[in-house]
């Protein structure tokens, strides 16, 4: 965690997503999964994208790595080290995946090969991408595992089914980190894990991330997790980013009515519900997407609001609402 | 009482026929079926009539003739009857027995499960093809007997698969909640468990048709089939035993061989399509 560091805008942007649109053509119509996404991921920072199920947050990660199914169409740009990831060919993309940008998948027990020893799995990327000889790759892998407290004599030679879910999750993370990628993407890392275990794993992840100097893009529905580990948060609702800013500010002083309402749903705030339900992404509401459920709506809200910068102490703060 | 739903996503079964590959499978499958049903209309001549022997495919006999001068095309069309009856009969029997045993064992668990699965294990240990061969050799060989034997021996794998799925389904929320709502076991089995097993049973059924047909051919080929009936397997058997292979009368054994292959292929196509469609319904969101 590097919240003690000066404001994140101090670092230069590493990944810059500019006006990205993602849609899927389905038999039911065109699903507008992500609309006008503008995001900057800075060096060494942790950026969390939070939102509810089906708001399109995972789509962003898949779009960046070109992992979307064939019925998807992507517009816009994602500039990473001067190259637009969205226009790269499959070959170049394959080099970037894993080496430069690594993704940690949701279910650790399913993402690991059950008949391979743990250390061998962690070493595999080194053998393939870096062409290291086997014994060197394995000793490096064991180093990496020991950072995740899996360094005792037994664990590296165990098989995934002999380890617990949390340990497997750590193995997954070690595998993603072994090539020292510049960006780590964690898509719902807390899913399927015990709450306390998820916290623990995330803290270790954040620690190692700082050590190797990577940036982390965390995609989660767990607001508290995002608050704990991230420097900045972007809140998504129905395919749009409605608010972005530093974690502390988002929680202390939410601007967008959706963010306020979402925070009110938290147990600490007494489970105050948001009326209505999330709109369909095929036929989203006109104007502001949150208009039908908003408590502070104005007539103006029937026109689409723009993302506007708001003055704040902690660097840039943006919100998509007519109230500001 | 079902409300008519006009929007496309209300009808998950719509759009089945729009998959090209499965259409091919369906077309092949149904043309074989039609050929079997309307053999007497479709075949150019009686399969037992004799013409000039060993004729290669040509104008008079599109697929040529065999050693007795019988028209191969007519033989094929009539042969599809026996092959299909054996295939369907055996598969229907095996699937029915297998799914009922699996369903009861899985749904009721406990003692019922132990006993039924014990029986299944015993049947699983019987070496099937040798038993069929021995029985077919002792009794008067007939294709009914073969179908019956295969049907009563081949249900074990279906039973096992169905049982594990039924075990899973019975723990699903919708079965549990229907139990807690007070529905009877019979109602739950018929209305909730069975429909959700169909995705498993249908492909299994289709594939057992295929394997029963192949087995029938092998048994016929071994000379244990019914010599008075024409089936695809018998045709290959005769082609082999009467020198069709050695003398290079390729049209004699090629045609039935291709028929078996293509028919089995069409079944596999339909089966895998059904599986896929089911996944897409279940995963729809």
């Amino acid at each position: 965690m590097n919240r003690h560091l000066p404001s994140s805008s101090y670092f230069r942007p590493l990944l810059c997503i500019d006006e990205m649109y993602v849609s899927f053509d389905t038999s039911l119509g065109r699903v507008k999964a992500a609309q006008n996404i503008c995001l900057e991921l800075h060096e060494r920072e942790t950026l969390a994208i939070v939102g509810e199920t089906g708001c399109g947050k995972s789509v962003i990660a898949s779009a960046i790595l070109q992992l979307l199914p064939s019925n998807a169409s992507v517009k816009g740009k994602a500039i990473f080290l001067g190259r637009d990831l969205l226009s790269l060919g499959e070959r170049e993309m394959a080099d970037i995946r894993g080496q430069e940008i690594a993704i940690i998948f949701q279910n650790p027990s399913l993402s690991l090969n059950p008949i391979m020893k743990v250390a061998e799995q962690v070493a595999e990327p080194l053998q393939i991408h870096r062409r290291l000889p086997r014994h060197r790759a394995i000793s490096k892998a064991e180093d990496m595992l020991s950072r995740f407290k899996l360094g005792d004599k037994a664990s590296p030679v165990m098989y995934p089914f002999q380890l617990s879910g949390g340990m497997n999750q750590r193995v997954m993370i070690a595998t993603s980190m072994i090539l020292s990628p510049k960006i780590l993407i964690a898509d719902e890392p807390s899913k399927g894990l015990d709450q306390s275990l998820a916290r623990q794993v995330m803290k270790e992840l954040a620690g190692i991330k700082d050590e190797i100097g990577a940036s982390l893009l965390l995609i989660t529905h767990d607001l508290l997790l995002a608050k704990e580990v991230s420097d900045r948060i972007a809140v998504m609702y129905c395919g749009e980013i409605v608010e972005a800013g530093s974690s502390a500010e988002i929680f202390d002083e939410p601007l967008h009515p959706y963010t306020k309402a979402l925070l009110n749903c938290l147990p600490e705030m007494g489970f105050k519900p948001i009326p209505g339900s999330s709109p369909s992404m095929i036929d989203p509401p006109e104007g502001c997407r949150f208009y039908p459920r908003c408590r502070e709506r104005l007539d103006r809200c029937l026109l689409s609001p723009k993302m506007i910068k708001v003055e704040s102490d902690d660097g840039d703060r943006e919100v998509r609402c007519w109230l500001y | 009482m079902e409300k008519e739903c006009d929007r496309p996503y209300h009808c998950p079964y719509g759009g089945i026929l729009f998959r090209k590959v499965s259409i091919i499978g369906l077309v092949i499958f149904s043309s074989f079926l039609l050929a079997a049903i309307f053999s007497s209309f479709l075949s150019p001549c009686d399969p037992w009539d004799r013409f000039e022997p060993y004729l290669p495919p040509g104008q008079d006999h599109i697929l040529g003739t065999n050693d007795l001068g019988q028209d191969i095309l007519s033989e094929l069309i009539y042969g599809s009857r026996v092959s299909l009856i054996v295939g369907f009969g055996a598969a229907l029997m095996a699937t029915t027995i297998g799914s009922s045993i699996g369903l009861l064992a899985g749904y009721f668990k406990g003692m019922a499960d132990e006993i039924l699965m014990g029986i299944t294990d015993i049947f699983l240990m019987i070496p099937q093809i040798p038993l069929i061969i021995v029985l077919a050799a002792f009794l008067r060989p007939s294709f009914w007997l073969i179908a019956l034997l295969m049907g009563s021996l081949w249900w074990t794998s279906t039973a096992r698969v169905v049982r594990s799925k039924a075990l899973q389904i019975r723990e699903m929320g919708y079965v549990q909640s229907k139990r807690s709502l007070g529905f009877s076991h019979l109602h739950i089995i018929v209305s909730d468990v069975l429909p959700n097993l169909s995705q498993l049973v249908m492909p299994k059924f289709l594939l057992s048709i295929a394997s029963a047909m192949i087995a029938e051919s092998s048994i016929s080929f071994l000379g244990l089939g019914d010599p008075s009936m024409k089936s695809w397997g018998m045709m290959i058997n005769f082609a082999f035993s009467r020198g069709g292979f050695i003398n290079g009368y390729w049209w004699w054994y090629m045609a039935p061989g291709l028929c078996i292959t293509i028919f089995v292929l069409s079944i596999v196509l339909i089966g895998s399509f059904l599986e896929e469609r089911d996944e897409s319904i279940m995963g729809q969101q």
Partner: protein
Amino acid sequence: MLALLAGKDLGKIYESGLIFKKQSLLFRDISLEIEEGKTLGLMGPSGTGKTTLGLIMAGLERPTSGHVCHRGKDIEDLKGKELIAFRRQVQMVFQDPQGSLNPRKSIERSIHEVLNLLSIPRREWQERTKDALEKVGLSEELLCRYPGQISGGQCQRVALGRVLLLRPKVMILDEPTSALDISVQAQILNLLKDLQRDMGLGYLLISHQPEVIGFMAHEKMILKDGISYSK
């Protein structure tokens, strides 16, 4: 006051193997009471048999020892009308919202099944269905969809609405919101509270989230290492 549903000295031992029996104890000597209009919160780490205890209380599984009493009568001895009354008055709502509806049946069919079970004349079905949906805040639009086509929160509402058709007195809620987003969780919890107030329902709420129990429950119970602790 006589408790609506009470469990006395419940124990559950799992046996496996036909000849060489292996036994494993899940829990023992658990007693609990569910009263009208009150919520009993049941907490505990995963794998301690919270769900099994819920199933036993709902009469869906048999305890190895002890018994469950509905209005003072052991449910094993219930017959005829009393059994039907028990089956209707004690209902269970499950964790996985999508799983608690048959994926192959439209929402309408799932609801109509229950109306059929209650032998309600067909002409009232439409009315009753509409009422049931209204109670849980859903629109009729949903009726011809399938569970896979609606959200988890909507599924959970349908499941609730369907259960309410039976006019239950006691509901056993097994992690009713743990699979839902926080905003939907807040909606469902508030809905459950409203229903309790309006209909005087007694709840046994199983959850691993202390906040949820804290928000809902009048009394708490913790199941740990096979025995219960009251709080």
